[in-house]
């Protein structure tokens, strides 16, 4: 296949095109998560979930009932409803910030994806060697730091929404959101430091790039091919718990807590603005699970100790076309999306299993449990890595 026509386009145009495509995938995917949520909650509760909606002019198509039963037409109907229904703005709100908040919530939710690699493919360099290239929007060494920096801006939209609503329940929701998100950001960041201690060998060039994290999980050998969830289970656990808190998911959905705060920060919102908050929440979930998969589950590698490169080399023996960059990219993205999909499912599974923590329990857990654990974990791995580098440099 010849892609020279595409590569002849000016760089800015290609970047705009790539960014648009990624957002066009992420936005509906986040919206589809809401349907997945409804379906999974239904199955857990012994119900079929939304399964009736179908446009009458499509009903004649054989087999379309599968789509109907999955609720995909319901999803489209919901989208249409949220777009066109009346969007009320209550009388006493601070109008400018009230409208700004949902827009602000979308910006970090959709822009963090630009630092997340979702696949990789081989290109052949001029000297004939093969070189693995990540599929991502912005290949920077900032990587994870940029993700954290941008995604933590998401809390401002919640605070702004809670404050601008000028009503007590949204205000309480906003206060809880700020306290919770700031507390858990700490343990989240500390929990992944051991990963980067391990990735960045002393003396080498330092990096925070998520692509390089995956690369160090795709090396040959027992330690080289090991996913970090086996190497650093405590890190993975603390990161996962903090991820639940950061994405405001049950059992940490303090900002929303619909049983005691009506709807929390979005009590006064309706229609399209409300749906923007939700798409943003699900987009955060998708990006968050993506980062978990990259850090601890080997990214696009199909299995522990089997990297995407060796898998492709193996498969190319059977089907030579698999080795083409396009196929390899698609296969890598598929493995990655499968893992992300599992985590989205896990998020929902946990939501419909656990009750919500009380606010003081959330704070206790964050400051008195997770933070000491992540600090102890960091010290343990710092010492362990130093001992390994000093005593067994060849391991």
């Amino acid at each position, binding site marked *: 296949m010849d892609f020279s026509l595409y590569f002849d386009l000016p760089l800015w145009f290609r970047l705009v095109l790539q960014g648009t495509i990624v957002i066009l995938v992420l936005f509906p995917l986040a919206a589809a998560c809401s349907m997945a949520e409804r379906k*999974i909650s*239904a*199955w*857990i509760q*012994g*119900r*079929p979930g939304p399964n009736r909606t179908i446009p009458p002019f499509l009903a004649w198509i054989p087999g379309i009932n599968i789509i109907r039963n999955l609720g995909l037409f319901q999803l489209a109907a919901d989208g249409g409803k949220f777009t066109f229904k009346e969007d009320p703005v209550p009388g006493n709100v601070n109008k400018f910030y009230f409208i700004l908040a949902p827009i602000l919530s979308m910006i970090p939710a959709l822009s963090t994806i630009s630092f997340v690699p979702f696949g990789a493919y081989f290109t052949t360099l001029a000297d004939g060697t093969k070189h693995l290239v990540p599929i991502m929007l912005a290949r920077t060494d900032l990587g994870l730091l940029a993700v954290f920096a941008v995604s933590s801006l998401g809390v401002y939209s919640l605070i702004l929404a809670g404050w601008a609503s000028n009503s007590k329940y949204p205000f309480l929701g906003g206060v809880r959101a700020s306290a919770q998100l700031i507390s858990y950001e700490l343990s989240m960041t500390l929990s992944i430091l051991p990963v980067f201690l391990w990735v960045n060998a002393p003396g080498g060039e330092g990096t925070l790039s998520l692509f390089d994290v995956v690369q160090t999980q795709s090396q040959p050998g027992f330690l080289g091919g090991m996913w970090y969830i086996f190497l650093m289970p405590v890190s993975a656990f603390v990161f996962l718990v903090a991820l639940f808190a950061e994405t405001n998911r049950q059992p940490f959905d303090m900002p929303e807590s619909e049983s005691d705060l009506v709807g929390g920060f979005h009590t006064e919102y309706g229609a399209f603005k409300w749906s923007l908050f939700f798409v943003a929440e699900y987009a955060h979930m998708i990006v968050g699970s993506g980062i978990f998969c990259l850090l601890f589950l080997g990214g696009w590698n199909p299995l522990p100790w089997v990297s995407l490169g060796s898998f492709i080399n193996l498969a190319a023996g059977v089907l030579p076309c698999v080795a083409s960059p396009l196929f390899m990219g698609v296969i890598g993205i598929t493995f990655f999306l499968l893992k992300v999909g599992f985590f989205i499912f896990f998020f929902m*599974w946990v939501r419909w*299993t656990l009750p919500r923590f009380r606010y003081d329990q959330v704070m206790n857990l964050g400051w008195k449990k997770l933070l000491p654990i992540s600090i102890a974990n960091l010290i343990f791995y710092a010492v362990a890595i130093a001992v390994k580098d000093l005593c067994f440099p060849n391991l």
Partner: protein
Amino acid sequence: MATITVERKPLSLLERTYIPNIVAGLTTTFKRMVKPTETLQYPEQRPAIPTGYRGVPTLVNDPHGREKCVSCQLCEFVCPPKAIRITPGEIANDDPNAHVEKRPKAFEIDMLRCIYCGLCQEVCPEEAIFLQNQYSMTGYTRAEMVNNKDRLYELGGTLPDQHYKWDKKKTAAEAASRGGHH
């Protein structure tokens, strides 16, 4: 004192991490998820109606196609919410059912008033009114929610009958007209 002091054991370290209980909970919900759903897909699937169910009150015919109701109006009088209105009517002498005492000229049950108590069925001396399996009454207007006589017979249909009261009356009447001792 009838107070029992329950000794609360301090939680073990593992219990305080919540993890075993979270895992147990996740297992439970996952098992529930893979089980078939309990939902009845209502308009297509209908629930099984238990015997003795008290649905919409209906009027029934006997197996020979006669109206069983003789418009005695007991049900109208007993009906607690006053949902029943009966206009009694005579049966002409040349009618095939002339030996039957009477029949209702109009029989209306206002289903917006009916409370499905079943007293009409219980009080009916002719076993003419039954609360049957029909449980879904809908309408767009108040008038639609009033079941008239035709509709009541349509809903009721024919129920088996052991007595054949009017057959006996008929044979008796015919025997009398032939000059028997009756």
